[in-house]
Protein backbone atom coordinates (compact mmCIF):
# COMPACT_ATOMS: atom_id res chain seq x y z
CA UNK A 1 0.00 0.00 0.00
CA UNK A 2 2.81 2.43 0.85
CA UNK A 3 4.50 1.43 -2.40
CA UNK A 4 1.32 2.36 -4.24
CA UNK A 5 1.21 5.86 -2.78
CA UNK A 6 4.96 6.27 -3.09
CA UNK A 7 4.73 5.46 -6.77
CA UNK A 8 1.90 7.95 -7.27
CA UNK A 9 3.83 10.70 -5.54
CA UNK A 10 7.22 10.05 -7.13
CA UNK A 11 5.58 9.51 -10.52
CA UNK A 12 3.65 12.76 -10.33
CA UNK A 13 6.79 14.55 -9.20
CA UNK A 14 8.75 13.15 -12.17
CA UNK A 15 6.05 14.45 -14.51
CA UNK A 16 6.30 17.94 -13.05
CA UNK A 17 10.09 17.85 -13.28
CA UNK A 18 9.76 17.04 -16.98
CA UNK A 19 7.36 19.94 -17.50
CA UNK A 20 9.81 22.21 -15.70
CA UNK A 21 12.64 21.25 -18.03
CA UNK A 22 10.69 21.80 -21.21
CA UNK A 23 9.31 25.16 -20.09
CA UNK A 24 12.84 26.37 -19.31
CA UNK A 25 13.87 25.44 -22.83
CA UNK A 26 10.76 27.15 -24.16
CA UNK A 27 12.10 30.48 -22.96
CA UNK A 28 15.71 29.86 -23.99
CA UNK A 29 16.89 31.21 -27.34
CA UNK A 30 16.68 28.93 -30.34
CA UNK A 31 19.82 27.10 -31.42
CA UNK A 32 18.96 26.35 -35.02
CA UNK A 33 20.22 28.19 -38.04
CA UNK A 34 17.66 29.39 -40.59
CA UNK A 35 19.43 27.69 -43.43
CA UNK A 36 18.75 29.40 -46.73
CA UNK A 37 18.86 32.80 -44.99
CA UNK A 38 21.91 32.11 -42.84
CA UNK A 39 24.79 29.79 -43.57
CA UNK A 40 27.84 28.68 -41.69
CA UNK A 41 31.31 28.94 -43.18
CA UNK A 42 32.55 25.57 -44.36
CA UNK A 43 35.44 24.07 -42.46
CA UNK A 44 38.77 24.17 -44.33
CA UNK A 45 38.84 20.38 -44.54
CA UNK A 46 35.31 20.03 -45.83
CA UNK A 47 35.23 17.35 -48.47
CA UNK A 48 33.07 18.45 -51.33
CA UNK A 49 33.51 17.08 -54.82
CA UNK A 50 37.04 17.36 -56.19
CA UNK A 51 38.33 20.30 -58.16
CA UNK A 52 41.52 20.98 -60.07
CA UNK A 53 43.99 23.34 -58.42
CA UNK A 54 45.20 26.46 -60.18
CA UNK A 55 48.96 26.76 -60.46
CA UNK A 56 49.74 30.45 -59.93
CA UNK A 57 53.27 30.16 -61.30
CA UNK A 58 52.53 28.37 -64.53
CA UNK A 59 49.06 29.80 -64.99
CA UNK A 60 47.45 26.43 -65.59
CA UNK A 61 46.50 23.28 -63.72
CA UNK A 62 49.08 21.16 -61.93
CA UNK A 63 48.09 17.83 -63.45
CA UNK A 64 50.80 15.70 -65.04
CA UNK A 65 48.35 13.08 -66.37
CA UNK A 66 49.76 10.21 -64.33
CA UNK A 67 46.29 8.59 -64.11
CA UNK A 68 46.86 7.91 -60.42
CA UNK A 69 43.50 9.33 -59.38
CA UNK A 70 41.71 7.33 -62.04
CA UNK A 71 43.23 4.12 -60.74
CA UNK A 72 42.73 4.97 -57.07
CA UNK A 73 39.04 5.76 -57.46
CA UNK A 74 36.93 2.94 -56.03
CA UNK A 75 33.89 3.80 -58.11
CA UNK A 76 35.56 4.66 -61.43
CA UNK A 77 34.10 8.10 -61.61
CA UNK A 78 37.14 9.93 -62.96
CA UNK A 79 38.10 9.94 -66.62
CA UNK A 80 40.96 12.04 -67.86
CA UNK A 81 42.95 12.43 -70.99
CA UNK A 82 46.16 14.22 -71.88
CA UNK A 83 48.45 14.72 -74.77
CA UNK A 84 52.15 15.22 -75.21
CA UNK A 85 53.16 18.73 -74.29
CA UNK A 86 54.24 20.92 -77.18
CA UNK A 87 57.95 21.31 -77.05
CA UNK A 88 58.55 20.47 -73.40
CA UNK A 89 58.50 17.05 -71.83
CA UNK A 90 55.64 15.44 -69.95
CA UNK A 91 51.97 15.57 -70.70
CA UNK A 92 49.28 18.24 -70.65
CA UNK A 93 45.76 17.63 -69.41
CA UNK A 94 43.14 17.97 -72.13
CA UNK A 95 40.09 16.59 -70.39
CA UNK A 96 39.09 15.81 -66.83
CA UNK A 97 35.59 14.51 -66.16
CA UNK A 98 34.15 13.67 -62.78
CA UNK A 99 30.96 11.64 -62.72
CA UNK A 100 29.69 12.99 -59.42
CA UNK A 101 26.67 10.67 -59.42
CA UNK A 102 29.02 7.79 -58.62
CA UNK A 103 31.46 9.63 -56.36
CA UNK A 104 31.49 8.65 -52.70
CA UNK A 105 33.66 11.60 -51.61
CA UNK A 106 36.30 9.32 -50.11
CA UNK A 107 39.21 11.51 -51.15
CA UNK A 108 41.52 8.70 -52.25
CA UNK A 109 42.19 10.57 -55.50
CA UNK A 110 43.30 13.71 -53.68
CA UNK A 111 45.55 11.65 -51.47
CA UNK A 112 47.22 9.79 -54.29
CA UNK A 113 47.95 12.83 -56.43
CA UNK A 114 51.75 13.39 -56.59
CA UNK A 115 51.55 17.05 -57.60
CA UNK A 116 48.64 18.13 -55.40
CA UNK A 117 46.70 19.02 -58.49
CA UNK A 118 43.42 18.01 -56.90
CA UNK A 119 41.58 19.55 -54.00
CA UNK A 120 38.13 19.40 -52.46
CA UNK A 121 35.73 22.12 -53.42
CA UNK A 122 33.58 23.68 -50.74
CA UNK A 123 30.39 23.35 -52.67
CA UNK A 124 27.48 21.70 -50.96
CA UNK A 125 24.47 23.30 -52.63
CA UNK A 126 24.14 20.58 -55.17
CA UNK A 127 20.63 19.91 -56.33
CA UNK A 128 19.31 19.64 -59.82
CA UNK A 129 16.86 18.06 -62.15
CA UNK A 130 19.10 16.14 -64.49
CA UNK A 131 21.60 13.40 -63.91
CA UNK A 132 23.79 14.89 -66.62
CA UNK A 133 24.26 18.07 -64.61
CA UNK A 134 26.51 16.07 -62.33
CA UNK A 135 29.05 14.96 -64.85
CA UNK A 136 31.46 17.80 -64.18
CA UNK A 137 34.08 18.91 -66.65
CA UNK A 138 36.62 20.01 -64.09
CA UNK A 139 38.98 21.55 -66.61
CA UNK A 140 36.23 23.85 -67.84
CA UNK A 141 35.31 24.72 -64.28
CA UNK A 142 38.89 25.66 -63.57
CA UNK A 143 39.19 27.76 -66.69
CA UNK A 144 35.89 29.49 -65.98
CA UNK A 145 37.12 30.35 -62.52
CA UNK A 146 40.39 31.80 -63.73
CA UNK A 147 39.56 33.69 -66.90
Amino acid at each position, binding site marked *: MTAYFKEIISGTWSLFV*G*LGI*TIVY*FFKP*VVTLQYPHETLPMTPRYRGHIDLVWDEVRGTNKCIVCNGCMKACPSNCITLAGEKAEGGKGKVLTQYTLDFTKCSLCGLCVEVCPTEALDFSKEYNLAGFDEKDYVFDLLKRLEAKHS
Partner: protein
Amino acid sequence: MFFIDAELIRLLAFVLGVIGFVALNAAYLVWLERKEAGHIQRRIGPKEVGPFGLLQPLADALKLMTKNLITPDGVDPILFKIAPILVMVPAIMSFVTLPFSDTLVARNLDVGLLAVFAFASINVLGLLLGAWGSRNKYAVISAARVVSQNVAYEIPMLVIIVTLVMITGTLNLHEIVTLQTGGFWHWNVLKFSASPLMPVAFIIFFICMLAETNRAPFDMAEAESELVAGAFTEYPGMGFGVFFMGEYANIVVGTSLATILFLGGWDCPLGLFPGVHWFLIKMYALIFVVIWIRWTYPRTTFYGLLNLSWKILIPVAFFNLILTSAMLKVF
Protein backbone atom coordinates in the same frame (compact mmCIF):
# COMPACT_ATOMS: atom_id res chain seq x y z
CA MET B 1 -44.81 41.20 -43.10
CA PHE B 2 -42.04 38.94 -42.10
CA PHE B 3 -42.44 37.20 -38.85
CA ILE B 4 -38.99 36.09 -38.07
CA ASP B 5 -38.34 35.02 -34.61
CA ALA B 6 -35.62 37.21 -33.12
CA GLU B 7 -34.47 34.21 -31.14
CA LEU B 8 -33.95 32.26 -34.37
CA ILE B 9 -31.80 35.01 -35.87
CA ARG B 10 -29.80 35.20 -32.69
CA LEU B 11 -29.33 31.44 -32.76
CA LEU B 12 -28.28 31.44 -36.41
CA ALA B 13 -25.80 34.22 -35.77
CA PHE B 14 -24.43 32.29 -32.85
CA VAL B 15 -24.09 29.05 -34.79
CA LEU B 16 -22.29 30.85 -37.59
CA GLY B 17 -20.11 32.59 -35.05
CA VAL B 18 -19.37 29.32 -33.32
CA ILE B 19 -18.46 27.61 -36.60
CA GLY B 20 -16.14 30.50 -37.42
CA PHE B 21 -14.67 30.40 -33.95
CA VAL B 22 -14.07 26.67 -34.13
CA ALA B 23 -12.56 26.79 -37.62
CA LEU B 24 -10.29 29.68 -36.71
CA ASN B 25 -9.28 27.97 -33.49
CA ALA B 26 -8.57 24.68 -35.21
CA ALA B 27 -6.41 26.44 -37.77
CA TYR B 28 -4.53 28.62 -35.34
CA LEU B 29 -4.15 25.99 -32.67
CA VAL B 30 -2.11 24.08 -35.23
CA TRP B 31 0.04 27.17 -35.62
CA LEU B 32 0.27 27.55 -31.83
CA GLU B 33 1.15 23.90 -31.42
CA ARG B 34 3.89 24.06 -34.01
CA LYS B 35 5.27 27.29 -32.64
CA GLU B 36 5.22 26.06 -29.06
CA ALA B 37 6.73 22.72 -30.02
CA GLY B 38 9.40 24.57 -31.91
CA HIS B 39 10.40 26.73 -29.01
CA ILE B 40 10.32 23.86 -26.54
CA GLN B 41 12.70 22.07 -28.89
CA ARG B 42 14.77 25.24 -29.33
CA ARG B 43 13.78 25.85 -32.91
CA ILE B 44 11.61 28.59 -34.37
CA GLY B 45 8.76 26.68 -35.90
CA PRO B 46 6.81 28.01 -38.89
CA LYS B 47 8.22 31.34 -40.02
CA GLU B 48 8.24 31.52 -43.78
CA VAL B 49 4.58 32.15 -44.68
CA GLY B 50 3.58 35.55 -43.44
CA PRO B 51 4.94 37.31 -40.35
CA PHE B 52 5.85 34.72 -37.69
CA GLY B 53 4.45 32.13 -40.07
CA LEU B 54 0.95 33.33 -39.26
CA LEU B 55 -0.36 32.48 -42.70
CA GLN B 56 0.92 28.92 -42.45
CA PRO B 57 -2.46 27.45 -41.38
CA LEU B 58 -4.09 29.02 -44.43
CA ALA B 59 -1.44 27.54 -46.68
CA ASP B 60 -1.91 24.16 -45.03
CA ALA B 61 -5.67 24.34 -45.42
CA LEU B 62 -5.27 25.29 -49.07
CA LYS B 63 -2.97 22.35 -49.61
CA LEU B 64 -5.35 19.92 -47.94
CA MET B 65 -8.32 21.27 -49.88
CA THR B 66 -6.64 21.00 -53.26
CA LYS B 67 -5.76 17.37 -52.67
CA ASN B 68 -7.68 14.70 -54.44
CA LEU B 69 -10.31 13.10 -52.22
CA ILE B 70 -9.52 9.48 -52.86
CA THR B 71 -11.84 6.78 -51.65
CA PRO B 72 -9.53 3.79 -51.43
CA ASP B 73 -10.59 0.44 -52.84
CA GLY B 74 -12.40 -1.80 -50.41
CA VAL B 75 -13.52 0.85 -47.95
CA ASP B 76 -17.12 1.27 -46.91
CA PRO B 77 -17.86 4.49 -48.85
CA ILE B 78 -20.66 5.71 -46.61
CA LEU B 79 -18.96 5.17 -43.28
CA PHE B 80 -15.70 6.42 -44.69
CA LYS B 81 -17.22 9.74 -45.70
CA ILE B 82 -19.55 10.23 -42.79
CA ALA B 83 -16.95 9.67 -40.08
CA PRO B 84 -15.08 13.00 -40.29
CA ILE B 85 -18.39 14.84 -40.10
CA LEU B 86 -19.40 12.77 -37.10
CA VAL B 87 -16.29 13.97 -35.33
CA MET B 88 -16.64 17.60 -36.34
CA VAL B 89 -20.35 18.30 -35.86
CA PRO B 90 -20.78 17.25 -32.20
CA ALA B 91 -17.81 19.42 -31.27
CA ILE B 92 -19.54 22.42 -32.83
CA MET B 93 -22.85 21.47 -31.24
CA SER B 94 -21.25 21.47 -27.80
CA PHE B 95 -20.51 25.16 -28.17
CA VAL B 96 -24.20 25.95 -28.34
CA THR B 97 -24.57 25.61 -24.64
CA LEU B 98 -21.13 26.79 -23.49
CA PRO B 99 -21.34 30.22 -21.85
CA PHE B 100 -18.42 32.38 -22.96
CA SER B 101 -19.54 35.25 -20.75
CA ASP B 102 -22.56 36.36 -18.81
CA THR B 103 -24.44 37.24 -22.00
CA LEU B 104 -22.51 35.43 -24.69
CA VAL B 105 -24.26 32.08 -24.78
CA ALA B 106 -26.27 30.62 -27.64
CA ARG B 107 -28.71 28.54 -25.63
CA ASN B 108 -28.65 28.49 -21.90
CA LEU B 109 -29.92 24.97 -21.35
CA ASP B 110 -30.85 23.71 -17.91
CA VAL B 111 -29.18 20.42 -18.75
CA GLY B 112 -26.23 22.05 -20.46
CA LEU B 113 -23.62 19.90 -18.77
CA LEU B 114 -25.45 16.76 -19.78
CA ALA B 115 -25.79 17.99 -23.35
CA VAL B 116 -22.05 18.64 -23.63
CA PHE B 117 -21.25 15.14 -22.45
CA ALA B 118 -23.84 13.64 -24.75
CA PHE B 119 -22.23 15.37 -27.72
CA ALA B 120 -18.74 14.52 -26.55
CA SER B 121 -19.44 10.81 -26.63
CA ILE B 122 -20.43 10.89 -30.32
CA ASN B 123 -16.87 11.83 -31.20
CA VAL B 124 -15.71 8.30 -30.34
CA LEU B 125 -18.35 6.85 -32.59
CA GLY B 126 -17.04 8.92 -35.47
CA LEU B 127 -13.51 7.64 -34.98
CA LEU B 128 -14.72 4.06 -34.65
CA LEU B 129 -16.81 4.23 -37.80
CA GLY B 130 -14.06 5.91 -39.77
CA ALA B 131 -11.51 3.34 -38.70
CA TRP B 132 -13.83 0.43 -39.27
CA GLY B 133 -14.97 1.79 -42.61
CA SER B 134 -11.46 2.28 -43.92
CA ARG B 135 -10.69 -1.45 -43.53
CA ASN B 136 -7.15 -0.97 -42.51
CA LYS B 137 -5.59 -3.18 -39.86
CA TYR B 138 -3.85 -0.29 -38.18
CA ALA B 139 -7.08 1.68 -38.17
CA VAL B 140 -9.04 -1.18 -36.64
CA ILE B 141 -6.49 -1.62 -33.86
CA SER B 142 -6.70 2.12 -33.32
CA ALA B 143 -10.50 2.00 -33.17
CA ALA B 144 -10.41 -0.72 -30.54
CA ARG B 145 -8.02 1.38 -28.52
CA VAL B 146 -10.13 4.54 -28.81
CA VAL B 147 -13.29 2.87 -27.63
CA SER B 148 -11.84 1.16 -24.60
CA GLN B 149 -9.85 4.25 -23.73
CA ASN B 150 -12.97 6.38 -23.79
CA VAL B 151 -15.00 3.91 -21.80
CA ALA B 152 -12.28 3.75 -19.19
CA TYR B 153 -11.97 7.50 -18.89
CA GLU B 154 -15.59 8.49 -18.93
CA ILE B 155 -16.07 6.83 -15.56
CA PRO B 156 -13.64 8.94 -13.47
CA MET B 157 -14.66 12.01 -15.43
CA LEU B 158 -18.34 11.51 -14.72
CA VAL B 159 -17.68 10.73 -11.07
CA ILE B 160 -15.90 14.07 -10.81
CA ILE B 161 -18.83 15.74 -12.58
CA VAL B 162 -21.28 14.13 -10.19
CA THR B 163 -19.24 15.53 -7.31
CA LEU B 164 -19.34 18.93 -8.91
CA VAL B 165 -23.07 18.79 -9.49
CA MET B 166 -23.55 17.83 -5.87
CA ILE B 167 -21.62 20.93 -4.82
CA THR B 168 -23.32 23.34 -7.20
CA GLY B 169 -26.70 21.67 -7.28
CA THR B 170 -27.32 22.44 -10.94
CA LEU B 171 -26.61 21.17 -14.45
CA ASN B 172 -26.88 24.63 -15.96
CA LEU B 173 -23.43 25.77 -17.03
CA HIS B 174 -24.29 29.43 -16.72
CA GLU B 175 -25.41 28.93 -13.17
CA ILE B 176 -22.30 26.90 -12.33
CA VAL B 177 -20.16 29.86 -13.36
CA THR B 178 -22.34 32.37 -11.56
CA LEU B 179 -21.90 30.41 -8.36
CA GLN B 180 -18.11 30.82 -8.69
CA THR B 181 -17.93 34.59 -9.27
CA GLY B 182 -16.13 36.97 -6.97
CA GLY B 183 -12.46 36.04 -7.10
CA PHE B 184 -10.32 32.93 -7.44
CA TRP B 185 -11.03 31.75 -3.91
CA HIS B 186 -14.63 31.12 -4.99
CA TRP B 187 -13.66 28.88 -7.89
CA ASN B 188 -14.49 25.23 -7.70
CA VAL B 189 -10.86 24.23 -8.00
CA LEU B 190 -10.21 25.84 -4.61
CA LYS B 191 -13.56 25.10 -2.96
CA PHE B 192 -12.01 23.48 0.09
CA SER B 193 -15.23 23.92 2.01
CA ALA B 194 -16.79 21.26 -0.19
CA SER B 195 -13.83 18.92 -0.28
CA PRO B 196 -10.12 19.35 0.43
CA LEU B 197 -9.42 17.26 -2.67
CA MET B 198 -10.83 19.73 -5.19
CA PRO B 199 -7.42 20.52 -6.85
CA VAL B 200 -6.88 16.78 -7.22
CA ALA B 201 -10.32 16.50 -8.75
CA PHE B 202 -9.37 19.20 -11.22
CA ILE B 203 -6.20 17.32 -12.17
CA ILE B 204 -8.18 14.12 -12.65
CA PHE B 205 -10.67 15.99 -14.80
CA PHE B 206 -7.81 17.42 -16.83
CA ILE B 207 -6.18 14.00 -17.32
CA CYS B 208 -9.51 12.51 -18.37
CA MET B 209 -10.02 15.42 -20.74
CA LEU B 210 -6.62 14.64 -22.34
CA ALA B 211 -7.58 11.00 -22.66
CA GLU B 212 -11.00 11.78 -24.10
CA THR B 213 -9.57 14.06 -26.75
CA ASN B 214 -6.81 11.52 -27.56
CA ARG B 215 -4.06 13.96 -26.75
CA ALA B 216 -0.55 12.95 -25.79
CA PRO B 217 0.45 11.18 -23.63
CA PHE B 218 -2.76 9.28 -24.33
CA ASP B 219 -2.64 9.54 -28.13
CA MET B 220 -2.72 5.81 -28.63
CA ALA B 221 -5.38 6.17 -31.29
CA GLU B 222 -2.99 7.75 -33.75
CA ALA B 223 0.30 6.60 -32.21
CA GLU B 224 2.34 7.27 -35.30
CA SER B 225 5.32 5.15 -34.28
CA GLU B 226 3.06 2.16 -33.75
CA LEU B 227 -0.01 2.51 -35.91
CA VAL B 228 1.28 4.83 -38.65
CA ALA B 229 -1.66 7.25 -38.35
CA GLY B 230 -4.17 5.07 -36.54
CA ALA B 231 -7.75 5.72 -37.51
CA PHE B 232 -6.72 8.31 -40.12
CA THR B 233 -4.33 6.06 -42.02
CA GLU B 234 -6.47 5.83 -45.13
CA TYR B 235 -7.82 9.37 -45.14
CA PRO B 236 -6.63 11.71 -47.87
CA GLY B 237 -6.74 15.50 -48.13
CA MET B 238 -9.61 17.23 -46.44
CA GLY B 239 -11.02 14.03 -44.97
CA PHE B 240 -7.96 14.00 -42.77
CA GLY B 241 -8.23 17.77 -42.41
CA VAL B 242 -11.73 17.57 -40.97
CA PHE B 243 -10.65 14.89 -38.51
CA PHE B 244 -7.79 17.11 -37.54
CA MET B 245 -10.03 20.12 -37.04
CA GLY B 246 -12.47 18.01 -35.09
CA GLU B 247 -9.68 17.02 -32.76
CA TYR B 248 -8.68 20.58 -32.08
CA ALA B 249 -12.34 21.58 -31.69
CA ASN B 250 -12.65 18.86 -29.08
CA ILE B 251 -9.66 20.26 -27.25
CA VAL B 252 -11.32 23.67 -27.25
CA VAL B 253 -14.50 22.13 -25.86
CA GLY B 254 -12.58 20.22 -23.22
CA THR B 255 -10.56 23.19 -22.03
CA SER B 256 -13.65 25.44 -22.11
CA LEU B 257 -15.46 22.95 -19.95
CA ALA B 258 -12.55 22.81 -17.52
CA THR B 259 -12.59 26.60 -17.40
CA ILE B 260 -16.30 26.73 -16.76
CA LEU B 261 -16.47 23.95 -14.22
CA PHE B 262 -13.33 24.61 -12.22
CA LEU B 263 -11.80 27.96 -13.07
CA GLY B 264 -14.79 30.23 -12.78
CA GLY B 265 -15.51 30.78 -16.47
CA TRP B 266 -15.51 34.47 -17.28
CA ASP B 267 -14.84 35.48 -13.70
CA CYS B 268 -11.74 37.58 -13.00
CA PRO B 269 -9.32 36.05 -10.46
CA LEU B 270 -9.55 39.22 -8.37
CA GLY B 271 -13.22 39.92 -8.92
CA LEU B 272 -12.64 42.88 -11.30
CA PHE B 273 -13.81 43.37 -14.87
CA PRO B 274 -15.32 39.97 -15.54
CA GLY B 275 -15.94 39.18 -19.18
CA VAL B 276 -15.26 37.04 -22.16
CA HIS B 277 -11.56 37.98 -22.18
CA TRP B 278 -11.01 36.14 -18.91
CA PHE B 279 -12.68 33.09 -20.32
CA LEU B 280 -10.45 33.14 -23.35
CA ILE B 281 -7.29 33.74 -21.30
CA LYS B 282 -8.04 30.79 -19.07
CA MET B 283 -9.00 28.58 -21.97
CA TYR B 284 -5.86 29.35 -23.97
CA ALA B 285 -3.69 28.93 -20.91
CA LEU B 286 -5.12 25.46 -20.52
CA ILE B 287 -4.56 24.76 -24.21
CA PHE B 288 -0.98 25.90 -23.77
CA VAL B 289 -0.59 23.36 -20.98
CA VAL B 290 -2.14 20.65 -23.15
CA ILE B 291 0.38 21.32 -25.88
CA TRP B 292 3.20 21.67 -23.39
CA ILE B 293 2.38 18.21 -22.01
CA ARG B 294 2.31 16.71 -25.46
CA TRP B 295 5.84 17.85 -26.25
CA THR B 296 7.25 16.70 -22.94
CA TYR B 297 6.13 13.15 -22.30
CA PRO B 298 6.44 9.87 -24.11
CA ARG B 299 3.25 8.01 -24.92
CA THR B 300 1.73 5.61 -22.44
CA THR B 301 0.73 2.14 -23.44
CA PHE B 302 -2.73 0.90 -23.57
CA TYR B 303 -2.54 -1.13 -20.40
CA GLY B 304 -0.63 1.66 -18.65
CA LEU B 305 -3.54 3.92 -19.40
CA LEU B 306 -6.12 1.43 -18.13
CA ASN B 307 -4.01 0.83 -15.03
CA LEU B 308 -3.94 4.56 -14.39
CA SER B 309 -7.66 4.84 -14.85
CA TRP B 310 -8.78 1.84 -12.82
CA LYS B 311 -6.13 1.75 -10.15
CA ILE B 312 -5.65 5.44 -9.44
CA LEU B 313 -8.15 7.81 -11.02
CA ILE B 314 -11.37 5.93 -10.30
CA PRO B 315 -10.56 5.15 -6.63
CA VAL B 316 -9.48 8.72 -5.99
CA ALA B 317 -12.54 10.11 -7.77
CA PHE B 318 -14.86 7.91 -5.73
CA PHE B 319 -13.07 8.80 -2.55
CA ASN B 320 -13.55 12.44 -3.43
CA LEU B 321 -17.24 11.80 -4.08
CA ILE B 322 -17.74 10.18 -0.71
CA LEU B 323 -15.72 12.84 1.05
CA THR B 324 -17.70 15.63 -0.63
CA SER B 325 -21.05 14.12 0.18
CA ALA B 326 -19.99 13.60 3.78
CA MET B 327 -18.77 17.17 4.07
CA LEU B 328 -21.90 18.56 2.43
CA LYS B 329 -24.00 16.57 4.87
CA VAL B 330 -22.00 17.61 7.90
CA PHE B 331 -21.49 21.32 7.15
